[in-house]
């Protein structure tokens, strides 16, 4: 029998620890600040956890979720969230696309327009909400004043306190703030389209609409889809803009799922129930998230 030492002892290839050391700080921070709280939040959502009865916190399984599905306020908050997300993202996209098309050619003043149109996007959200609240005030508000002096309205409109108008008002503010994101993103995507593609289309006699429909739009579609998914997630989760503008009113007409979850958890101190609502929001958003990851991989492959 050959002695074991006769075997050729191949030194096992040691894994290089250098890249792990480099990502370690990031991994620690993200685990602690991003991932752990989500796990804790999901755990909370399965507790009978009310801060008013803080010494009596106990596990109650899916009871919060059962309660949620029977809660009419939650259903209406979900509908408000969908309306808000679709309206804000949809109009942001249309206005952003329109602006990008106007800016996509070289002409005098292009850089100035671009700079000015991007300004809303950098303004601090709280400032945006406060300033718009001031503009939309019914009695001394600027918007009512302008519309009145143009004889478009006789009586001041209750922009933020009329039950049907309030949602349109917050969507308008969201579009004001959000369209520059699309404008810049779509412009960048259009910049990647080589000139000879347009040249060929023009030689073939395509008019503006045909060129947009058959060349520009298909080529900016991947970017549009990806950034729209991201925007949907961010808009759905957004809390600040509406909260400072209307506080969720009038009569819950602008109470999104985020605001409803916030109220339950932080105002009524039903931490368990509030967390359960947020978990439902997370589940809905992860559907979009999975789509986002898939599409991003797909587009990367085809690029």
């Amino acid at each position, binding site marked *: 029998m050959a002695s074991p030492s006769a075997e050729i002892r191949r030194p096992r290839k040691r*894994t*290089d620890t*250098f*890249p*792990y050391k*480099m*990502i370690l*700080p*990031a*991994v620690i*921070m*993200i685990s*602690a*600040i*991003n*991932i*752990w*709280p*989500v796990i*804790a*939040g999901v755990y*909370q959502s399965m507790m009978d956890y009310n801060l008013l009865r803080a010494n009596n916190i106990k596990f109650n399984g899916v009871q919060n979720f059962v309660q949620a599905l029977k809660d009419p306020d939650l259903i209406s908050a979900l509908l408000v969230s969908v309306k808000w997300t679709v309206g804000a993202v949809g109009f942001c996209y249309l206005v952003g696309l329109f*602006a990008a098309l106007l*800016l996509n050619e070289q002409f005098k003043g292009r850089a100035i*327009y671009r*700079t000015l*149109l991007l*300004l*809303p996007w*950098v*303004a*601090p*959200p*709280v*400032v*945006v909400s*406060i*300033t718009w609240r*001031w503009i939309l005030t019914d009695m*001394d508000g*600027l918007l009512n004043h302008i519309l009145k002096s143009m004889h478009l309205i006789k009586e001041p409109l209750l922009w933020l306190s009329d039950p049907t108008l309030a949602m349109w008002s917050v969507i308008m503010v969201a579009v004001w703030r959000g369209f*520059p*994101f699309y404008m810049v993103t779509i412009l*960048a*995507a259009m910049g*990647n389209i080589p000139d000879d593609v347009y040249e060929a289309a023009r030689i073939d006699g395509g008019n503006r609409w045909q060129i947009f429909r058959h060349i520009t739009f298909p080529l900016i579609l991947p*970017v549009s889809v990806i*950034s729209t998914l*991201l925007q949907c*997630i961010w808009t759905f989760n957004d*809390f*600040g803009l509406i909260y400072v503008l209307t506080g969720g009113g009038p009569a819950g007409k602008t109470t999104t799922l*985020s605001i409803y979850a*916030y109220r339950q*958890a932080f105002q009524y101190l039903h931490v368990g129930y509030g*967390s359960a609502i*947020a978990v439902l*929001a*997370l589940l809905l958003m992860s559907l979009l*998230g999975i789509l986002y990851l898939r599409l991003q991989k797909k587009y990367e492959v085809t690029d």
Partner: protein
Amino acid sequence: MTNKLSQLMLNLLRHVVLIGMSLFALLPFYWMVVTSIKPREEQMMGPTLIPKHITFEAYQHVWSETQFPAWFWNSLKVAAGSTAMALLVACLAGYAMSRYNFKGKGAFGTTLLMVQMFPLVLVGIPLVLLISKVGVMDKPFGLVLVYMTFALPFAIWMMKGFFDGIPRSLEEAATIDGCSRMQAFRLIVLPLSGPGLTSVAVFTFLLAWNEFFIAYLFLKTKLTLPIGLLTFIAQFFNQWDSLMAASTLTTIPVLVFYMVLQRQLTRGITAGAVKG
């Protein structure tokens, strides 16, 4: 001739529409500033687009009779701290993502994308518990920890993309000359990464300067500007000149940043969605 004319008309139309859109974009900023410098008596007479008299009383009031300067200082500390830490951590991780293949790299990348989708309302309470356990509740450092982490996914992807554009041969030459890998990174790659670092810095600074949900939960006394402004709404109900003066002062640093670093900022916006 008719072709030229229609081209001219089209150009004119383009300018008209763009001017209209620019007015829409600028109007709130204009109204904010005008309200802040209009005397109270004039304010009472209803909204007028052009002020007859100008006064800086509201600014004086906000700056010398309220907590505003302290909030401003706190915000600056939080934003600067978050930016410095995010830059450091994102550089290291971005470099590893760019240059090395290691087990778990794909999972790490996907995690970075996924964490951006978590609703803040869900993580709020666990974060408050965690931060008070660390003992940095109501301290700027607590916010620094959170904001720099919130900035990391974008920052790491951004730095990775930037490092990808720097040829490896430079570091290879340096390691042959006897540099350690860390030295090659620090002495060769980092000095070439200015524009990438600037983009990340602008992004993180703005995130930290603007964020208010987490600040709202964390801070009781040492407020940052967004939270300070929220307390102003209740305190100065209907004193729009003071509110708008405070809002203007909060916006100025952001605008300065934007004017100086516009290119880096727009690159930042597009990096997430456009793969060039």
